[in-house]
């Protein structure tokens, strides 16, 4: 429950039918490239948001009829049967290689992968690194919630220090569990990488920025410039053992404080997450200074 006081005296407007007054419809329940809107993911899960955004970008770029997606294994796998693009379901961790094979045989198509942090940074870490170094013209999209959501919220290789998971109930401890891997920092500097960015879906503006990143990544692929990568931070209230409504805040303040959002590579421009964090701090500093 949110903290905002309930204001029962305000009139509730009808929302069960389109408006009778002349109005322009801005958005649909679901993106065109989703077959139906029902799914079994948990309340407050961030993954459907990321998937919606990705599908919208493909549609808006006019690539719906020219796209092959390769899906990893995680909670998002539930969408393999409802995303309305040609899809190949890969095994856990193997999506980048599968995408490579598909792209090499269909070089004219847009090929993307949809993976989770467990899928990409645990089971399949070397797949994505080799794919990037090889400069494969595919776009890997990674949903990072810092847990294996599907198996019940266990620690992954991206879980940040202090984060609670099913096997780090007291929070991840560097001495005992090691350090999180900033996958975007590993991928961005590789010779074959042309684009790498990290977005988030913790609020509406973040979703908008993530959408731009996805668009730039797919454009990079369309130009044949090399490998492209977009990481998207997503809520997993179930795996984190936090109340559903606190998911976005936890995502932004806990995961986002380590896996900072921004563009890490765009053609020759290359920055590290550490630099993004520093820049954000400087920014915040500036904003806090009196405008004078």
């Amino acid at each position, binding site marked *: 429950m949110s903290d905002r006081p309930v204001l029962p005296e305000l*009139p*509730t*407007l009808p929302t069960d*039918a389109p408006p009778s007054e002349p*109005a322009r419809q*801005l958005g649909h329940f679901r993106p065109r490239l989703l077959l139906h809107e029902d799914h079994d*993911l948990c309340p407050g899960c961030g993954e459907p948001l990321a998937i919606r955004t990705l599908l919208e970008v493909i549609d808006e770029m006019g690539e719906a009829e020219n796209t092959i997606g390769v899906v990893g294994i995680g909670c998002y796998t539930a969408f393999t049967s409802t995303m309305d693009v040609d899809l190949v379901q890969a095994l856990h961790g193997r999506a980048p290689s599968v995408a490579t094979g598909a792209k090499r045989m269909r070089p004219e198509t847009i090929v993307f992968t949809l993976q989770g942090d467990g899928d990409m940074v645990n089971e399949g870490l070397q797949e994505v690194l080799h794919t990037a170094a090889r400069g494969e013209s595919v776009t890997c999209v990674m949903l990072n919630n810092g847990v294996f959501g599907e198996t019940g919220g266990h620690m992954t290789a991206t879980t940040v220090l202090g984060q609670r998971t099913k096997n780090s109930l007291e929070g991840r401890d560097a001495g005992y569990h090691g350090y999180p891997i900033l996958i975007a920092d590993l991928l961005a500097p590789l010779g074959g990488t042309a684009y790498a960015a990290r977005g988030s879906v913790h609020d509406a503006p973040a979703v908008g920025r993530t959408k731009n990143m996805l668009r730039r990544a797919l454009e990079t692929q369309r130009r044949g410039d090399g490998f492209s990568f977009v990481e998207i931070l997503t809520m997993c209230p179930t795996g984190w053992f936090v109340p559903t409504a606190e998911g*976005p805040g936890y995502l932004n303040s806990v995961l986002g404080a380590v896996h900072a959002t921004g563009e890490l590579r765009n053609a020759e421009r290359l920055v590290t997450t550490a630099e993004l964090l520093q820049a954000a701090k400087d920014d915040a500093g500036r904003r806090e200074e009196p405008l004078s």
Partner: protein
Amino acid sequence: MSTVEARGTITIAVERCKGCELCIPACPPRVLRMSADHNETGYAYPELLPGCTGCGACLLVCPDFCFEVYQYETPILHEVGAIGDLGGPES
């Protein structure tokens, strides 16, 4: 009594809602609130108060695809109680 201008409105697929409340803080004019009632599955769901701008933020953050968003060709006015109760944007 006073009036609130609504530049837009929404429809909500109440039965699909899983009560996560992500839409509530996402709405810039704060015109969504959770229902006292529960839907068939047992979840509370959002209700719309007057003042929607049709900005689409709710749609962007709802994981269960519960929203359609409309912008009125001409804004409409809703009669409401004391304006202060709205609890709108903090600004």
